[in-house]
């Protein structure tokens, strides 16, 4: 038996384990006098997830010799750079959300926009940094005005 689709296998196993865990959790739901109770529908759903995950695991395996996989070549520098950019985007977004309640929405948004524009942009000259700073300021101010003042939303 060989692994035809390793990603699907990993996903199937993860969903299977998650489904089993959540299925066990359904027994902790208190019952009620209402029809079928609050436990039944979740049990049906998680039961379906478990069964479908098993099917997915099965489909990701194959009997017989393995097919010759399409070997991807080594990542070229351009691809490595864009992968780095994706990670940088996630990291910047995480930090932005984490510090927003601490330093306030406006300042956090300004910082996030400026950092992200600098990271994603190709040019990092003084002129372009000034442009990014100006645009970040306008973005932050506009969002604070629209949501904080016009829509009267309580901002972090």
């Amino acid at each position, binding site marked *: 038996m060989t692994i035809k689709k390793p990603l699907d296998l990993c996903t199937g196993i993860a969903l299977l384990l998650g489904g089993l865990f959540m299925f066990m959790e359904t027994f902790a739901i208190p019952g009620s006098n209402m029809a079928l109770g609050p436990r039944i529908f979740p049990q049906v*759903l998680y039961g379906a997830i478990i069964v479908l995950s098993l099917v997915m695991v099965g489909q990701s395996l194959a009997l017989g010799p393995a097919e010759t996989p399409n070997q991807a070549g080594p990542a070229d520098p351009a691809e490595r750079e864009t992968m780095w950019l994706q990670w940088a985007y996630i990291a910047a*977004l995480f930090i932005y959300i984490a510090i927003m309640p601490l330093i306030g929405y406006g300042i956090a948004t300004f910082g996030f926009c400026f950092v992200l524009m600098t990271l994603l942009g190709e040019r990092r000259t003084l002129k372009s940094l000034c442009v990014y700073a100006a645009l970040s300021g306008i973005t932050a101010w506009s969002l604070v005005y629209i949501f904080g003042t016009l*829509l009267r939303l309580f901002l972090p």
Partner: protein
Amino acid sequence: MFGDIGQVMMVFSPLTMAVMLAGVFGGLVVGAMPGLTSTMAVALLVPITYGMTMELGLCMLVAVYVGAISGGLVSATLLNIPGTPSSVATCFDAYPMAKRGEAGKALAYGVFASFIGGIFSFFVLLFMAPVLGNFALRFSSYEYFALVVFALTCIISVSRKSLVKGLLAACIGMALGLIGLSNMDMVSRFSFNSPSLESGIDVLPVLIGMYAVSQLMVEIKAIRKPYQIMEADFTTREFIAVAKTFRHSIRNLVRSSIIGTAIGILPGVGPGLSNIVAYARAKSADKNPDSYGRGNPDGIIASESANNASTGGALIPLLTLGVPGDASTMMMIGAFMIHGVQPGPLLFRDNPSVVMIITLAFLISTIMMLLVQMQCIRVLVKALSIPRHILYSVITALCVIGSFALRSNMFDVWVFFATGIAGYIMVKIDFPILPLVLGLIFGSMAETEFRSSYVLGGNSFSGYLDRPIALVFLAAAVLSVVISAYTIRRSKTPAMDTQDLT
């Protein structure tokens, strides 16, 4: 039938017209830019409707939706990249026309075809929606549960990525919808003693995360590849000259509009599929099919009339059954929910004016779309030059505040972040997103109707046997799954993807 005329007439007020004009223009700009979809545009604007009246907010969203679907024509013609999935087939003939110096003509064909397709579906919406809405008033728990099952299986069947993955996505979405207090018993489920989870997972942050952030992460991968933009412009005289040639393409226009409207009505399908189906049909019906793909205007006419016809079609199940016709109309459910209104048959009974307002807004937006494109096509072309690194930063900041806005809750922002990453992973491992999100929206309702139908049947499901409409929906659901499984098994070539086309 039309509700309060005075309330309906607000759609013609200066404020509403100005908002719709801005919405159409904004939608066209978003739709013109590759990677920014109509779904994303609507998702980002839904939180802003919080500060508006429901009618004004919905008018704006309809305008953005109409504009964004049509805007994809610009990048399809000038970049050979569809601005939205609804313009994939437009690329096939619009770009070859642009390469031989007829970009302006190609754009003119697309704009006029979009207008005709939109007007066609407006009339279908106007006459069909009240009939279907009144019919759906007879629905009870049996029909509603069966309808949800049918809608989910329809979406799964059409996506054709993998039936198992589609079903898994739908089940996971419904399971997420059950977190928090149950509707019927007010019993806490899966909250793990967390007050945030006790109040459940809100739909809007998940929608924004799954459709906006995941898409942005895909686009960031291509951010270093510059666009090569063709020059294009057309004058009003040229546009009218092109419009006059449409009499030779009447059959194609009508057929594609019918295809677009019909596909738009199917839950979860929408313009992403209709443009391809209409194009394929036009090509096979043409006397000279080999001319398609080489700059045949009929290819553009088929694609663009179908995708705009789908927008009106997609509004029909949203308004009459409460089931979204596509991902963008699914976002509009968020706007309804913000204002505490449930789209569906009860909307016709309790708020008929809202239905009429949306219908008229669709008509006005379609007309505005034509006029704006005729006058401002140069501006839309310029929009393609907006630096993406600036655009993506601003959009992300808007996503964050949009996720926060509904409940003023940082938990929602973290949900947005987590689902954004989850959405990207789903794209990478070929999991369809739409069934998951639809499952999240309808999970709680599906359980309520499921349990209610059990009670109504005297603590059994035998009541379904006396409800032919429910049985038809359930049979259609089973049939769609079976056909999909059979088709996927027989298929030798990779199925066409209707989501996340990059």
